[in-house]
């Protein structure tokens, strides 16, 4: 929102001579290549690929063969430049096209780019202008193919891309889980006419039908009937009108319902039917509303007939008729509901307006193989979903007519489901949906705002020698504060609002201002200290009798020096766990680790050691990139080496490949089991993993608390937040020790 309110303040002066704020839009143009443009009736969408130089924290182990001196740090940290790929998408009104092209021309350094992929109805209208300004050859792509390609891309890469619209619900937008398999689906594109496309795979789609009664009909007939010229104004009129004064309803014919057919009295029997039988004058508003209903119902019915004929339940709607307009989303939803008796839900897409541009871009970027990678929405650089009822959201007015952005980062690894999810299609990582829970939302937004000072200070402190750390930290503060404010008004901006998304947004914003790892030094110090105690802890554990040792190991995992240990805990499956340990060992345990320092070294490792001694193989999964004080994969590698040097059990396990380190693919303090590194999934499958341990607030409470796995699982955490503890029925520092055995798991059958 920082970007848009700034851009918005200059809105009135915006004409062809505007100066665009380069910090905010058309970023990273100097490295840009592979342009694509989608020019619609009123909006232009521009796409380009660029690389971003980022500071990243790297850890490097010292040479251990040299004699160690007390006080030497365990490993060294350096900040290095890393180059990552990013996709930029910008949406603006056609009126600004010339200014934007000039801006791009002035800032474009890369001269390798020779063509620009173009799609959309306006592509040929602006062909000459683009070729003249950018000196790029315009290469036209089929609109529908681009749309489908773009649609596949967002469905695959953006969780919470699709939503159901419910006008009268607490949250208007109900986001859908990304189904692991996005195909087959129906895309109903409502432009001037309607196209109905069945998409069966990445490359296979078919236009199975269509209708000439679409957005152009609403606009054209509406303009004739009401003398209102603009599409948006027509929708405004419609939202204020009463269709019942123009339409003939069932009750106008029957006096009530047509009971034997189940047709209610309020159902429209004949659109504009009252105008056929009376000489009355009708208001513009009423006629516009009647027209809107007529068209929405007609499309809804057609969609329903096609969905039934092809046996499809996933039906996405797009096109300028829909594009973020609550009025049309509502009438289409209503109509689909009516015709399918609720069997099919109308789905809409957060980035619907970008599909054509994304598709055109992908067509031009095939040699980069964008589909081989996973991509992630960058919350710092993306505007998020803006459009809602204008009277509900004053910020919307400022926004419209300016620039909307979407940025997507290429992830270094391909992400897939954890193969051990009971039902991948119904898995929801997050425990509380803050979009739907207004109280929880208020609380957490407040929390994150309160914590901001601390985060800023830590960021500054982490870079004492780097230039402009204070200024950058201040920019970070402003950016994140604006994000929080946006989310207060529009909690649905980036899909369902969750504690995870708030944390991730903060990480994205920190990265944006080159604070890749504010905790690196703290982690280093804590790891150092903890390592010194490792052997002592292991020795004292070994002395304990079996039962006591198991309990001490669990306490260690829960960072047990802090609090009260009286059982029963808030969630207490400890007895069942110990019973299970008396049985045969697990084949392989997958352990999602949490914090650096004491937690990993004195909690996780002793526990892992015990598992190894029982004959269980262990896979330790840690974050690929930094997040808070979580241990990263590169840090964990060094730690493991150091521990192995001290401990023969760990050393042997590594040598024999019974202890393996993998990266999760994530850089979040939370855990989304539907987006994990592909290599992790392979290891999990190969080793016949039959136990999953998830540790810590972020991974086991904020996320995955309700996750159902197909094997045994342990979820453990101490709730270090009194509000959340209360929500779950306990007090601050309550312990959650959840041991779950799926019905009919091999564990039970034994």
């Amino acid at each position: 929102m920082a970007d848009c309110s700034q851009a918005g303040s200059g809105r009135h002066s915006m004409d062809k001579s505007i100066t665009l704020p380069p910090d905010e839009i058309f970023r990273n143009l100097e490295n840009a290549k592979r342009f694509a443009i989608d020019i619609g009736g009123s909006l232009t969408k521009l796409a380009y690929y660029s690389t971003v130089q980022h500071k990243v924290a790297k850890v490097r182990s010292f040479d251990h063969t040299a004699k160690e001196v007390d006080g030497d740090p365990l490993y060294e940290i350096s900040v290095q430049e890393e180059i990552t790929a990013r996709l930029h998408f910008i949406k603006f009104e056609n009126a600004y096209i010339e200014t934007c092209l000039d801006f791009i021309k002035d800032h474009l350094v890369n001269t390798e780019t020779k063509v620009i992929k173009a799609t959309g109805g306006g592509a040929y209208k602006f062909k000459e202008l683009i070729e003249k300004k950018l000196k790029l050859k315009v290469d036209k792509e089929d609109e529908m193919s681009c749309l489908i390609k773009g649609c596949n891309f967002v469905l695959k890469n953006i969780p919470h891309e699709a939503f159901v619209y419910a006008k009268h619900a607490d949250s208007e937008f109900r986001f859908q889980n990304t189904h692991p398999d996005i195909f087959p689906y129906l895309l109903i594109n409502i432009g001037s006419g309607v196209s109905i496309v069945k998409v069966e795979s990445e490359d296979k789609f078919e236009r199975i039908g269509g209708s000439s009664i679409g957005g152009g009909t609403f606009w054209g007939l509406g303009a004739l009937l009401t003398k209102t010229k603009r599409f948006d104004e027509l929708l405004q009129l419609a939202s204020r009108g009463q269709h019942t004064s123009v339409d003939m309803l069932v009750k106008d014919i029957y006096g009530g319902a047509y009971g034997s057919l189940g047709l209610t009295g309020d159902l429209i029997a004949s659109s504009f039917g009252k105008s056929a039988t009376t000489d009355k004058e009708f208001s513009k508003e009423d006629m516009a509303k009647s027209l809107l209903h007529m068209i929405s119902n007609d499309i809804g019915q057609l969609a329903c007939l096609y969905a039934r004929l092809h046996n499809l339940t996933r039906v996405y709607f797009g096109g300028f008729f829909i594009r973020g307009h609550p009025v049309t989303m509502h009438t289409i939803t209503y109509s689909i509901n009516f015709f399918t008796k609720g069997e099919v839900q109308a789905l809409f897409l957060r980035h619907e307006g970008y599909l054509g541009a994304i598709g055109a871009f992908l067509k031009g970027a095939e040699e980069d193989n964008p589909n081989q990678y996973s991509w992630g929405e960058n919350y710092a650089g993306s505007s998020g979903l803006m459009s809602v009822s204008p009277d509900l959201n004053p910020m919307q007015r400022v926004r419209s007519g300016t620039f909307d952005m979407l940025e997507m980062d290429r992830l270094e690894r391909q992400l897939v489901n954890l193969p051990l999810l009971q039902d991948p299609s119904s898995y929801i990582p997050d425990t509380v949906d803050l979009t739907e829970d207004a109280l929880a939302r208020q609380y957490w937004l407040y929390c994150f705002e309160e914590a901001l000072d601390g985060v800023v200070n830590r960021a500054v402190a982490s870079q004492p020698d780097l230039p402009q750390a204070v200024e950058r930290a201040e920019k970070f503060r402003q950016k994140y504060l604006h994000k929080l404010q946006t989310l207060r008004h529009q909690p649905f901006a980036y899909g369902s609002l969750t504690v995870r998304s708030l944390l991730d947004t903060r990480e994205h914003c920190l990265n944006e201002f080159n604070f890749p790892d504010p905790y690196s030094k703290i982690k280093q110090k804590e790891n150092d200290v903890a390592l010194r105690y490792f052997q002592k802890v292991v020795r004292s554990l070994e002395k304990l009798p079996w039962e006591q040792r198991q309990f001490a190991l669990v306490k260690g995992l829960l960072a047990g020096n802090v609090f009260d240990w009286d059982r029963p805990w808030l969630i207490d499956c400890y007895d069942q766990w110990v019973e299970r340990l008396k049985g045969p060992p697990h084949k392989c345990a997958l352990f999602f680790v949490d914090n650096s320092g004491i937690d990993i070294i004195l909690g996780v490792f002793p526990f892992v050691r015990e598992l190894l001694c029982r004959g269980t193989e262990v896979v330790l999964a840690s974050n690929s990139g930094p997040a808070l004080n979580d241990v990263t994969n590169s840090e964990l590698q060094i730690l493991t080496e150091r521990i192995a040097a001290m401990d023969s059990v760990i050393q042997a396990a590594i040598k024999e490949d019974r202890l393996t380190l993998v990266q999760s693919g994530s850089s979040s303090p939370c855990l989304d089991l539907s987006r994990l590194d592909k290599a992790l999934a392979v290891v999990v499958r190969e080793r016949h993993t039959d136990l999953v341990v998830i540790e810590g607030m972020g991974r086991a409470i904020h996320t995955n608390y309700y996750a159902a796995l197909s094997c045994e699982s342990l979820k453990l955490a101490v709730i270090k937040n009194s509000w959340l503890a209360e929500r779950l029925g306990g007090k601050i520092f309550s312990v959650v020790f959840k041991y779950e055995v799926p019905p009919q798991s091999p564990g039970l059958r034994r």
Partner: protein
Amino acid sequence: MKLKDAKKTSFPWFGMDIGGTLVKLVYFEPVDVTAEEEQEEVECLKSIRKYLTSNVAYGSTGIRDTHLELKGLTVHGRRGNLHFIRFPTHDLPTFIQMGRDKNFSTLHTVLCATGGGAYKFEEEFRTIGNLQLHKLDELDCLVKGLLYIDSPSFNGQAECYYFENALDPERCRKMPYNLQDPYPLLVVNIGSGVSILAVYSKDNYKRVAGTSLGGGTFLGLCGLLTGCESFDEALELASKGDSTHADKLVRDIYGGDYERFDLPGWAVASSFGNMIYKEKREAVTKEDLARATLVTITNNIGWIAKMSAVNEKINRVVFVGNFLRVNTLSMKLLAYALDYWSQSQTKALFLEHEGYFGAVGALLGLLNFT
């Protein structure tokens, strides 16, 4: 009121279908009235018969479709002629008043009515006309009436017809169709709104679809767009117009056919889609707008009918309802659309008594009423 013997079903025999826009009335005029009967016949009955059969127009809006009259029909053992009369629903109060003035209630007859108005105006029939309506379901009546009328020939001609060479305007001709074995049949009833029924046998049918874009929409929109005041006037305008001035065609967008999807250049991409441009709005005529409205509504019905036919696996679609009255334009469009989009797999059929089947069904209901 119970009648033991159908033969004793007392005259007059009426069937009425009160729709959203039009009231359809069928009247059976017995021609085998014996002298004895005539003597017994009360004055009121005579005057009704005389009034209905000697006029072709009633009041300012009632019309008898003389060309549809079925002559020498035997119904329930009686021989006679079946008359077809229509008037606007908003004149129904005048009709009820007339019934009262003519002491219709003294005949102690049963008045069978169907359509929504049978429910909506029941109270008015009772309080003003002192008449008790016997209400019948409109789709039951439609199916019964349709199957009944189709069986006797239409004064020696075919009741059912289709358009041969629907795809070629030069060679397109109306041809009789033998609907002796009518099942399964998709019936598309286009009144103010549209109902689509799948009929599997005499007693087995279901409503499979419907749309609110029907005859009422055509007339309502035409009135608002052109100021015309009647259905006939709207059709007259439409016959002189060119819908492509208002509609955006596939070729307007793609310069020709959209080959990627087999869409011909002449197909309408967006109904009224050209009307988003000021200069085109200024150039368009009333006639063009009327034509575009007719084409839009008709094609939409054709498309939904075609989809329903595919969904129900039925390949004969019969279009009925008063929207088709004197509306050859729409009938040919429907014939063309169904032929083209189904690759001639689905046939569009029409019936001469297009709008009256509900009323006929109501009349049959009276005779079966025991």
